[in-house]
């Protein structure tokens, strides 16, 4: 079993590293070139979002005539007014996605930490078997249809949020990451000494191992939360009752096809110039903006956790 080769950087090391590097640094010329190259690419990653914001603020008629443009000749907030007036569908979908994300992440953490902790313990005599049980699923799977049948015929969970939660709550990948994290940050001796002090296996797990493994747990938790937030596939498969409030991403997929959810509330149409019609195209983009905004605002603050646990845990399975 290979051990980790990357040490998480200590707080003080950064400054030292920078100072040391000075005489080995690239020349200012290359620095400019690199800055431009990386900067352009980074901009290309952010640009589409800014572009969609501009589109959503375009006047519908202008959009139809001029196409998508970064600086439309006529602005309008009609799309947003329309979304906010047309009832609470968007808000409900937000709620569903939020519920799925929170419940799903908690469930994932419970499943992943317990399973991988056991696998990380050298004293666990069934380690080989349970490792195999988990990792074999990376090699072979029954496929989409049998999975679908298990969910619908056997668990009868279609059209419930459990159909969105359960399929994503465990994976061999997260078990590998978490197990390695435990192995590298929680030496067996720590647990053994705790046991000598009279703590049972459970006590040791809950009161010693979990607290010192928080960075790893945060990583897995964020991975899982992101997966749940962005998932539309399970809704596509399992949500077939039109009365069911769809999760956010699925709602976005549906409005791509038709705007019925909006025109359903035709009584609000009165506020809009009938000749200009419904702001359909801009409303779509406004919905995309509103659905993306929470992520865009939040991710810079937790992005480092995505790396922290993984760099420690990224050793082979």
């Amino acid at each position, binding site marked *: 079993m290979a051990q980790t080769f990357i040490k998480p950087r200590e707080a003080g090391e950064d400054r030292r590293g920078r100072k040391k590097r000075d005489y080995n640094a690239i020349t200012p010329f290359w620095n400019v070139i690199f800055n431009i190259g990386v900067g352009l690419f980074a901009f290309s990653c952010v640009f589409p979002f800014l572009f969609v914001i501009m589109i959503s603020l375009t006047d519908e008629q202008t959009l139809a005539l001029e196409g998508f443009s970064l600086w439309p000749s006529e602005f309008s907030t009609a799309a947003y007014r329309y979304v906010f007036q047309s009832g609470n569908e968007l808000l409900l979908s937000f709620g569903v996605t939020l519920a799925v994300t929170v419940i799903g992440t908690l469930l994932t953490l419970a499943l992943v930490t317990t*399973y991988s902790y056991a696998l990380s313990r050298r004293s666990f005599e069934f380690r080989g078997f349970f490792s195999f049980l988990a990792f074999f699923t990376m090699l072979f799977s029954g496929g989409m249809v049998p999975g679908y049948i298990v969910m619908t015929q056997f668990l009868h969970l279609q059209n419930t949020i459990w159909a969105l939660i359960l399929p994503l709550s465990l994976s061999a990948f997260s078990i590998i990451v978490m197990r390695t994290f435990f192995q590298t940050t929680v030496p067996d001796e720590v647990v053994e000494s705790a046991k000598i002090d009279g703590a049972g296996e459970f006590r040791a797990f809950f009161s010693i191992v979990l607290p010192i493994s928080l960075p790893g747990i945060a990583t897995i938790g964020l991975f899982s939360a992101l997966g749940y937030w962005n998932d539309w596939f399970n809704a596509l498969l399992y949500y077939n009752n039109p009365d069911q409030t769809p999760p956010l991403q699925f709602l976005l997929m549906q409005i791509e096809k038709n705007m019925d959810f909006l025109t359903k509330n035709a009584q609000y149409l009165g506020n809009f110039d009938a000749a200009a019609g419904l702001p359909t195209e801009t409303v779509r983009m406004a919905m995309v903006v509103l659905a993306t905004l929470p992520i865009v605002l939040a991710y810079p603050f937790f992005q480092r956790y995505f790396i922290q646990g993984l760099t420690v845990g990224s050793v082979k399975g």
Partner: protein
Amino acid sequence: MTAFWKKIVRNRALLLLVLPGTVWFLIFAYLPMFGTVLAFKDFRISPDGFFASVLNSEWVGFKNFEYLFRTSDAYIITRNTILYNVAMIILGLVSAVAFAILLSELLNKRMAKVYQTGMFLPHFLSWVIISYFAFTFLSPDKGVLNQLLTALGMERISWYSEPAYWPLILLFVGIWKGIGYSSVIYLAAITGIDKSYYEAATIDGARKWQQIRYITLPLLRPLMIILTILAIGGIFRSDFGLFYQLPKDSGALYPVTNVIDTFVYRGLMNMGDIGMSTAAGLYQSLVGLILILTTNYIVRRIDRDQAIF
């Protein structure tokens, strides 16, 4: 047997800990494997419920696989799946390492942080959103690209019915979405490398390029191998979204956008035929298995210690 039971008792606490996960694996990973028998049955609905339907359905051997291989579809989707995945993994690896090295060399660390954050954004967005993004560029009547073409006095292109451009589009978007994330992982690894290596190298007169070649890359190798293996393990749930959402289900693009995943899904949805869709899914699992075994074999040849098995 008593020895076995004793062992269970001895490990009871840890066994209890693996129990929830085990139940999950049994239900969501192993139970479906039994479902693959449907690939060999002519599934007919019988009124006594689903399981009765399965039992009453006739065995048909490999007949359900026939429709896969009747047209060139099997070849096309297999080719697409393998080529896209291989290309994405190789190009993704190269570009992620390249960007990580570039980022690590930038003089202004604050700017590097800003770039990093920007590049990370696509990783957090779903394929649904990204397909909206793509549409703002590719829309035949309103898209930016066609506006540019018109402005340059060139013919507009109906992007969603011209297969020629899509391999490039898919590869670009696939890498674009993932690069921020993987380059940040490599960057973390680079900053973790002991600086004394570089100091020694500089004293020996090694140039930047030589340092990268003889210090950085070899030290990153284990990480590259792990991430590559993980990426290949993920082929099962390959980027379905990339291939399903981005081309907007345009038939003209199927020859270059259809992968086994989307084929299985469309089969289930369009034909509603459980037997044939299961057969296609089973085929997918086999292709995935072969891919993983092959990579493992290659990794084994390069570095025995890094192979999964």
